[in-house]
């Protein structure tokens, strides 16, 4: 390769690395700053459901209530995930496309600086292989999508279901303290879903961590594909 080509390629590599790092950092901050407003929407839906279902029905049909709450959560995760990851994936593709154009425009053909012995198009595919959207998310059912991104349904600990969330109903005179009991239930619902979104458990990452991991792995895949020999 001529020196001019080598220099052009080095510059393209340096620019691409910087662009991808800036993209990654911006997306991670965006998740941190916007996940909370999405969470507020979820809580509103969950609370509305419990409130509209009524205290007596909630008490007598707790399995149905829990299933429906999880259903609301699944749909919300689906939308939230798409909001954060799908748009990020599109931006990543745009960076990759720009790189392809620059490599083709400014360097001799067959001198692509990719570690993978392939064309840039295939390389981009490798970078975003971890993305569920790359598998055709539009056709995946809600449940399938949910599973595809490795988010499990919120697990309600038996003790919590029996003792904390609904125990207030069975203890004493619920007619008298109806509003307080409803508030207790709502508080517990909020806490369980908040933990699922923000708090990592020993064997289960929370949604925020999963979203971060997706962005990090897409960026890492891309960076690993760029030859770092300047």
């Amino acid at each position, binding site marked *: 390769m001529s*020196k*001019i080509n080598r*220099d*052009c390629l*080095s*510059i*393209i590599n*340096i*620019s691409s*690395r*910087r662009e991808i*790092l*800036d993209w*990654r*950092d911006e997306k*991670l*901050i965006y*998740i*941190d*700053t916007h996940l*909370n407003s999405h969470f507020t929407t979820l809580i509103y839906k969950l609370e509305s459901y419990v409130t509209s279902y009524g205290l007596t029905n909630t008490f007598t049909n707790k399995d149905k209530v829990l299933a429906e709450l999880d259903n609301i959560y699944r749909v919300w995760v689906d939308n939230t995930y798409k909001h954060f990851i799908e748009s990020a994936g599109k931006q990543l593709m745009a960076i990759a496309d720009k790189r392809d154009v*620059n490599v083709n*425009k*400014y360097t001799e053909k067959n001198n692509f600086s990719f570690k993978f012995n392939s064309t840039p198009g295939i390389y981009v595919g490798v970078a975003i292989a971890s993305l569920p959207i790359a598998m055709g998310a539009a056709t995946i059912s809600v449940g399938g999508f949910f599973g595809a991104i490795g988010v499990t349904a919120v697990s309600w600990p038996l003790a919590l279901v029996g003792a904390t969330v609904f125990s207030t109903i069975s203890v004493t005179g619920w007619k008298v303290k109806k509003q307080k009991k409803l508030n207790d239930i709502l508080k517990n619902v909020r806490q369980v879903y908040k933990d699922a979104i923000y708090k990592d458990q020993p064997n289960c990452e929370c949604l925020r961590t999963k979203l*971060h991991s997706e962005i*990090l792995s897409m960026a890492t895949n891309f*960076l690993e594909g760029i030859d*770092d*020999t*300047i």
Partner: protein
Amino acid sequence: MIPFEIPLKYAQGLIDGSLLRIGTLIKDQSTGRIVGHIQETGLTSKLLEGFVGSPFSPIQAISGIGANFQLAHITNLLNTMKILQYANIGVSVVGIGVSAVGFAMMNNKLNKMQDSLNKLSSEVIIGFSELHSTLLREHFSKVTGLVEQAEQAYQLSSPERSWLKISSSLAEESSFFRGELGHYLKLNSFSEDIFSPLLQSFMTCSTARVECLMLASEIESAKDVAANHAKDCRYLFEPLTPSALANQTLNIEVSDSEISHQLAQKNEHFSLIINGLRDITDATSTKPILLDYLIEKGIDGREYIETINSNENEPLLILPVS
């Protein structure tokens, strides 16, 4: 004579987007080719020597530096860095182009860092034990001694051998500080007070090595050192994200709403630091390209260093690529 130009000549192109700065070089957007290398001068380091504060302070902070220099020089540096679209002065840690700090001034910087580390060792900071502090002081002293020897070598009748010897000793110190930085960045806590001196020490070792090799007219070796340093910077700094640093330093003993507010502030603060580290990484990545150009044009390393060090009229120059 080395044909430097003033950056103002490139200002319009940078503003209208026909030219783009990447690291410390300027490329033509339509051809993709390099049109010039940005090079700091002895004046830049003198101006920034009076600056006290974080190495990742915003560019505007330059306007507040010492009054020993004509305001025109400070304004010129501030404006040029703005035109070149640097977000903060972090890049000056590694030098814009080949470092023009000079060994004597490097020593002043090292002494200042040692003072701040001594202060830190008297405070209880996670990841900074007394034992650790003693070890760091030991290595600081070695680097200070080596840089002092490099300055004294100018007085020798044939200093080249000394510069080469000093360069290999600096390689060992560079490796030590790289290891310390790597270790520190893996800890689950982050303090700029510890990170900054470690970073500056690592950078000083590398820039001093490159300078020694250039003075000894071994530009090929200088280029290899610069290329390896660039790899080290990518390895160390690319995994860092503002979001992770913000979360590491959060005070979680506050309410949810306060955490959100705190997180937003910290994200902004660490974005500035990370941006500075990215500028440093890009600057180190483009340095080998500059050195390659000097080799191609047969420019002598010592002549280059002495020319940029002695320039006291312009803080930044452009070496046009023909």
